[in-house]
């Protein structure tokens, strides 16, 4: 239907004689070259802005989930220790160390992701190794239902639950009003699945990172 009218497979017989293969290859190479030049120059021109923006967003997110932090550092786990490493490498997980003005480690911002109600939820949460507490959570990316599941980042009360949350024995989501323990989060009414997903993603992040942070911190 649409492709017929769009691509119009009628043969355009403008060229009189058959062009040689060499010419075809030449044309395509030229086109490729041209496009390469354009793309690379645009890429070069925009790259600094883009990287700067991404870095700023990340920093802001880190500052959001960790209080009293003025600078952050990307850390990866290698050979049993955490090492500072700015360049991203594929397949390598990282956390962000947050430091106060004096350069002292305040805590870690841990990114974690997992399946939510609709699609993957990606979030970042701040963890204080000293008191073994979570002190902030921010959802970076999600497609949860507007008006319901999206309360995991729109509902201040829910986000507030992560401001002072013990990680031991394990974070739990409970029905609103019934949670009182330090490790319990009041689930959003009507969006229990999304709330539980957030908690599960945090627990998964904890399982992956807390032993390392406690060991290599």
């Amino acid at each position, binding site marked *: *239907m*649409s*492709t017929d009218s769009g*691509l119009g497979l009628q043969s355009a017989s403008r060229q009189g004689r058959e062009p040689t293969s060499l010419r075809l290859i030449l044309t395509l190479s030229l086109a490729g070259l041209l*496009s*390469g030049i354009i*793309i*690379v120059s*645009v*890429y070069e021109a925009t790259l600094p802005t883009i990287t700067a923006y991404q870095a700023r967003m990340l920093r802001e997110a880190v500052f959001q989930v960790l209080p009293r932090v003025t600078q952050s550092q990307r850390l990866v786990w290698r050979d049993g220790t955490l090492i500072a490493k700015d360049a991203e490498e*594929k*397949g390598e997980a990282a956390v962000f160390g947050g430091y106060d003005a004096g350069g002292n480690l305040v805590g870690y911002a841990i990114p974690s992701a*997992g*399946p*939510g*109600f*609709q*699609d*993957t939820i990606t979030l970042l949460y701040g963890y204080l190794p000293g008191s073994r507490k979570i002190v902030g959570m921010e959802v970076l990316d999600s497609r949860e*239902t507007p008006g319901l599941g999206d309360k995991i980042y729109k509902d201040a009360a829910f986000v507030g639950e992560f401001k002072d949350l013990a990680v031991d024995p394990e974070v739990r989501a409970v029905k609103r009003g019934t949670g009182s323990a330090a490790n319990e989060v009041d689930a959003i009414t009507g969006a229990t*699945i999304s709330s*539980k*997903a957030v908690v*599960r993603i945090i627990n998964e992040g904890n399982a992956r990172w807390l032993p390392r942070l406690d060991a290599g911190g």
Partner: protein
Amino acid sequence: MNALLWIFISALLVNNFVLSYFLGLCPFLGVSGRLETAFRLGLATLFVMLITALCSWLLNTYVLIHAPYLRIISFIVVIASTVQFIEMVIKRVSPGLFRALGIFLPLITTNCAILGLAIFATNKGYGLIEGLIYALGAGLGFTLALVLMAGLREETELAPVPRLLRGTALNLIIAGILSMAFMGFAGLFSAA
């Protein structure tokens, strides 16, 4: 294991390429008139998706890590040439299969579901196995949506549908209702 299951179910049902991401709508609306053709197109797409998943992983791992700006152009070039190559191979190896799938292969080149698969798999940072499972789910999901749609559309041909609605408008509304029905899969196995 659970993660792979979720990737599969998510691509197949929860985030069905057609009904949730609107990918591959042109063939979805264009080739769903007959059940037979819909099924064959679905399988052809599934096949190309699996190959694309492989190719995009290769590209991501060996090429794009050095030149990320070539992502779009290299994906589309690779998809187009892969489809062409597959077409030639099938024609040579299995004329029967070629007769069944042949006419759909060029159509698949402009199917945004294929490019979408490559881009999404890249964005999600899937490895080879995850990418292949993702492609399998997406391709089967595409086939499922297409086959269901074809069955429904064949039925509407016998119905006195209001004249102004006949055609794309009705098909879109059917797709909308299908999409509502697929919302029931939301959250499936995410808590498992």
